């Protein structure tokens, strides 16, 4: 029987949807809020 060498490919992992949603909320909160405040500063 031919000798087999195991090669395992590392597949890139994507964070779960909930984590990405939280990231989107945090980014929107910080950047969006500061941007809107900057718009109304005058």
């Amino acid at each position, binding site marked *: *029987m*031919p*000798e*087999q*060498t*195991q*090669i*395992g*490919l*590392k*597949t*890139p992992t994507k*964070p779960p949807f909930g*984590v*990405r949603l*939280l*990231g*989107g*909320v*945090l*980014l*929107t*909160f*910080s*950047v*969006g*809020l*500061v*941007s*809107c*405040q*900057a*718009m*109304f*500063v*005058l």
Partner: protein
Amino acid sequence: MTDSENTPPEQRRTLGLTELILGIKPDRNPNAPAPAKPRAKGTLLFVLPIPILIGALIGLGAGRLDVVLADGGIFALFMAAADLTRRGLKAESAQQILRFTRLQRVPLKTIGGLLTGLATALAAVVSVQQGLGLGLAYAAVAMLGFHLLYGFEPLGRPRAFATNDERARKVAAALEEAERKLIDLDRAAKTIANPELKIRLQRIGSQGRSILNQIADRPTDLFRARKFLSVYLDGVQQVADGYARTHRLADSRELEQNFRNVLVTVEQVFDEQHQRLLKTDVMDLDIQIEVLKKQLEREGIQ
């Protein structure tokens, strides 16, 4: 008729083995349509800072040059961050197409994330005139959100393989080197204007990838495919590079015909190599079945 019905039986079996060991379906069909273009990502980073641009325009209307410069500069910083992030995400999805190589790249996403944090802090401190502490807090929340949504690139050069012994490391290194040559081949193909020659080169690249998949599937094939990796792959890469460099300077029919002849030969050699590897696979399985049959007969099971 489905694709699997069109596939020769020996190829169908190996395809299954590849899926089993690597957990990924390989692209063996050179005529298969190109994968769909990845959709644009990172749009949120382009949209969220728009109010700052409006603020700059309001400042312009009010005759406040300081507001225009501050808001305009911060908006430009946000756009630079968004652009870098988008490029980073594109590079990342292109990277996922590569099977055996992880190229060292500029950490565009990480730079984009840091610039997003910096722009947020500047917007809070300079435009909104909040304190430095609050500005840093906004920047920290923005970078945390960025990390959760897009992720920062890992430090150092990630490895494509989880290699567990010396032999596997050797095979992984050979596959990585061969894939780098195929990447160079693809790059050369992109610079060639002649559509026929371009398609031929791309087909050779696809055949080469099939052979690499086959080797990853059964690493013992590396020793059978050594000539392919060291002679033909090197040769076609050098010839394609040379042609890509010279055909723009000297548009010679003879050169084009010679290059075409080389490509046709290489296509044949690559196809033969692939078929040979597949045949060996089938022969090995036949031997294994024969040995098992004899063993069962000896033990009186059959």
